[in-house]
């Protein structure tokens, strides 16, 4: 796939631009629901880049978990807290400062990236697409302890979320 390289790159840049514009939308939208919807677009862009990097599994997990569950939860909270009702001040007082800090961070990161000499082989390196079996093996053998910890963490987090969000018995 010699000529595929440029095609993939074009697709990559399209996706990247979509993702970044959506991300800017997330942080600048004047409406929380819009921000959430931009977030979905951004996630889809990230998933697309995962696909370009030939890790379909991560892309699909990203869609499955973020794309549906997370976004639904966010929209839930939005609806129940009636954020649409009154226009809220969505930005804090330190906005210019924040923008400046973020730009500084960006400059530092890009500077670092450019300054580093990546000793990688060229982009057409022989990367073996990772199979499902390999990921499964890795998770359940090498990384089994973190996996269990993540599971426990997940259950604790969900329990905590339920306890936090459920109304008090002695509310009245």
């Amino acid at each position: 796939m010699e000529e595929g390289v440029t095609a993939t790159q074009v697709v990559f840049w399209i996706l990247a631009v979509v993702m970044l514009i959506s991300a800017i939308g997330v942080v600048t939208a004047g409406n929380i629901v819009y921000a959430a919807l931009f977030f979905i677009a951004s996630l889809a862009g990230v998933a697309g880049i995962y696909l370009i990097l030939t890790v379909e599994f991560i892309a699909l997990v990203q869609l499955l978990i973020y794309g549906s569950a997370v976004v639904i939860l966010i929209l839930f909270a939005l609806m129940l807290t009636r954020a649409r009702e009154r226009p809220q001040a969505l930005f804090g007082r330190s906005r210019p400062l924040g923008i400046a800090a973020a730009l500084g961070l960006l400059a530092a990161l890009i500077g670092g990236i450019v300054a580093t000499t990546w000793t990688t082989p060229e982009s057409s390196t022989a990367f073996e697409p990772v199979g499902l079996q390999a990921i499964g093996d890795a998770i359940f053998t090498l990384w089994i302890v973190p996996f269990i910890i993540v599971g426990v963490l997940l259950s604790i987090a969900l329990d905590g979320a339920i306890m936090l969000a459920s109304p008090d018995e002695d509310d009245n």
Partner: protein
Amino acid sequence: MPPLEHILVVNAVLFAIGAMGVLTRRNAVLILLSVELMLNAVSLNMVAFAVYGHVDFGNITGIVFAFFIIVIAAAEVALALGIVVRTFRNRATANVDEVNLLKW
């Protein structure tokens, strides 16, 4: 595939955008979304390094870490939303700078 530098630059921009959101927004839900953006940038970076064979301990590891990050992000979102809803109930606001009970 695109060169690694391109991907890293894109990720850096994404990360910076997320950081900007965290720093400028005052609504807790929006801050949460911005943090998610940053997490996305990080996990994308991990996958990129893994795919380009830049990690010492095998290229599967980055992918597994991305997987873990996504899972933990889900847990984090659930927990954070619980906190937001609770805060909203108690304080009638979803703005972080108005929640100052623990300031002192």
